[in-house]
């Protein structure tokens, strides 16, 4: 399955996207790319000058994806950083899903980055991750 995402119609007030990838690790990375694409007009304008690591645990994969995206939103608002996932490792044990990620990006610049939507949160509304024969697909709604 080719990794990628697309913004989809349907969510009237918000902004929804569908992401696909062959592995869960790649799916989470693609979702971070979609969030960045919602935030800036040209995601390629975000240079990899800063690195952060992130460790999270939630009861299931969908809540883990929700928390992961919301941590990226928090890092933008609280630390002024535009970040994407460089690498993600998802592990699952009974009753818990864990994430270890390396994030890369740079400080948000209202001059250098053409800003798009001020995503306030990824939401639990309609959130799903489904297995496909050739990989995984996630649907996420962003509150803007």
């Amino acid at each position: 399955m080719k990794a990628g995402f697309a913004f989809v119609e349907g969510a009237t007030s918000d902004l929804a996207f569908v992401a696909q990838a062959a592995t869960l690790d790649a799916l989470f990375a693609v979702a971070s790319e979609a969030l960045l694409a919602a935030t800036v007009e040209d995601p390629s304008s975000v240079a990899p000058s800063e690195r952060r690591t992130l460790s999270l645990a939630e009861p299931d994969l969908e809540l883990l994806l929700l928390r992961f995206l919301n941590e990226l939103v928090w890092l933008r608002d609280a630390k002024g950083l535009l970040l994407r996932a460089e690498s993600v490792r998802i592990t699952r044990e009974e009753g818990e899903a864990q994430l270890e990620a390396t994030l890369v990006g740079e400080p948000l610049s209202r001059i250098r980055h053409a800003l798009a939507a001020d995503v306030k949160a990824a939401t639990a509304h309609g959130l799903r991750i489904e297995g496909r024969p050739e990989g995984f697909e996630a649907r996420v709604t962003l509150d803007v």
Partner: protein
Amino acid sequence: MDEDTGVISPGGIGFDINCGMRLVRTDLTFAEVAPRLSELVDSLADRVPAGVGARGFLALNESEFEEVLRDGAHWAVKHGYGVPDDLLHTEATGRFPDADPAAVSTHAIERGLAQVGTLGSGNHYLEIQVAHPEGVADPDLARAFGIDRPEQVMVMFHCGSRGFGHQVASDYLHLFLRLMPTKFGLPLIDRELASAPFASPEGKSYYAAMCCAANMSFVNRQVILHRIREVFARVFQRSADALGIRCIYDVAHNTAKRETHLVGGEPRQLLVHRKGATRAFPPGHPELPPAYRATGQPVIVGGSMETGSWLLAGVPSGAVSFFSTAHGSGRTMSRTRARKLVRGRALQDQLAARGILVRTASLRGLAEEAGFAYKSVDEVAEATEEAGLSRRVAHLVPVGNVKG
């Protein structure tokens, strides 16, 4: 929800806690403003930061931010960002008294520190509007609310608690999702509507945190009004007071409030969740300020930047909805679809040709907010009147708009 047996739900309140509308009157007519309109809109866009990553002009430390969370708009007036009369014309005088900053995470405080005094983006805006005589549906109520001359210029803005409120709500959503199947024994039907018993320690804690976010939002709108006063005073070389700039009302539309209502003829203490719904108290309600005791509460319903907005008033028959009415016209089309149909720059030019000057932090965001993506605000206002939830007072038409 019953306070003793019901639940509190962050999703049922809305994540942009105390997102709300503020309507401000002036003594100016459109004929006086028109020659300076471009300068006015530019100055407002400059002085009220909007869009992604915008930072407010207040440099607050954590201790000061906690005062904001505790005291709401009273903090702003105490520090010179407004006058006491503003508080009388704000829902709950701009302060939810049950706020407790100890219930708010460090994560949320770090996110909110620099956000006071910022407009946001999406459907948040600051608009210069005109009350044309033909748009006044109830001249007596309009006069009582401060619309008292033909072609009067008004300022309306729509914003909330920014990322701070979202963080408060998200923090508790994750907590409640963990506790619903275990500690609370509650069925999880929709994760977005995760909840906790209001009487539980966690439910009470969320209520205290939500009140903090509501207070932050009241401060946000209060300091934005302060900046509006500064801009008008500079552009027109008269004090804001001399220009008759006065807050008509500030009303929230994403809250939960403890109120007493008649249920089956008996008064009951309830926690009223209003997500995307505006409180609309009727004439005579004891919580209304003296100025509006006889008229009923002003209700501000935002429309699109093309079609205008409505000022309504609360009515006695609104008891059927616990005195709640609509807050805005609502979208009919996805943002993705709207963006395919119009480019932001083209829309900006079209609106300018129609006499509506728009300044935006995001042209893509502007396209998503095109008028055709929204329901008719006239139909929404009329529907609330026909349903007996509120009555129409005046239609307000945009001439200048600042968008995030």
